[in-house]
């Protein structure tokens, strides 16, 4: 199908996956911030850099083989189910420079900056996706506006 090959080609699939991943990671970081003062709580995270690596690897593989879809490999913190949906499984972060008696180191600054960075990646993915969709709309309309 033409539309299927258009929608599943280029960067659209990768951007969709990146948006879904950052959305799920946002939830994980929110829980970390909510639990800043919870005794014994270990901050959790999913590896964004690792996911981006797997994504670029999948893109390179697709360019090599010339397939239409995008097969992202599962990683330590995420799983891609057959329908292509990304499922995030947060892992506890090893505490560094333990500050408190319960062995935690809830660093608000770090969590907040991770939250902001994650939101920026999400926004970037969505803006690029919007650009792709707008291109498609222009192609469908058949004229530039």
């Amino acid at each position, binding site marked *: 199908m033409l539309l299927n090959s258009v929608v599943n080609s280029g960067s659209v699939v990768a951007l969709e996956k990146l*948006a879904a991943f950052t*959305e799920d990671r*946002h*939830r994980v*970081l*929110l*829980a970390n*911030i*909510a*639990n*800043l*003062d*919870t*005794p014994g*709580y270990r901050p959790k995270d999913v590896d964004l850099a690792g996911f981006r690596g797997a994504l670029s690897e999948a893109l390179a593989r697709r360019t090599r083989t010339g397939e239409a879809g995008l097969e992202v490999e599962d990683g330590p913190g995420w799983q891609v189910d057959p329908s292509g949906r990304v499922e995030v499984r947060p892992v506890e972060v090893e505490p560094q420079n333990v500050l408190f008696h319960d062995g935690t180191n809830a660093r*608000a600054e770090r969590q*907040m900056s991770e*939250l*902001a960075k994650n*939101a920026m990646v*999400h*926004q970037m993915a*969505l*803006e690029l*996706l*919007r650009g792709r*969709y707008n291109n498609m709309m222009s192609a469908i309309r058949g004229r530039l506006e």
Partner: protein
Amino acid sequence: MFDALDISVSALAAQRIRMDTVAGNLANAFTTRNADGQAEPYRRRFVVFAEGDGGGGAGVHVGRIGEDPSPSRLVHEPGHPDADANGYVRYPNVQVSTEMVNALEAARAYEANITAMQITKSMVSNTLRLLA
């Protein structure tokens, strides 16, 4: 995506309860009698947070409100109606400086969660803009 706000809201509620206990402690910093009018000094209360919103979702909730078992402050005030045989009055084990630091921490954590909510909101509106 919309339920991501609930995580931050649970933290706002928990921090507000923490602020309530701080306010209660400060209000009762010099209370020497209990609700029944007996000469029993007020005990400092504190919140213990627990993971999860209490209903199975992600977030945080107040697991319990504990009472500080540390000894009361003894002040020599022989004329006081609640003074013991040696003229000492038992005042609550509330330390104003500790409470103020607690209040500050709660306010900062509240702020952090408000900021997180604003980021969530902008993420949602960015997502909705895809449809436009």
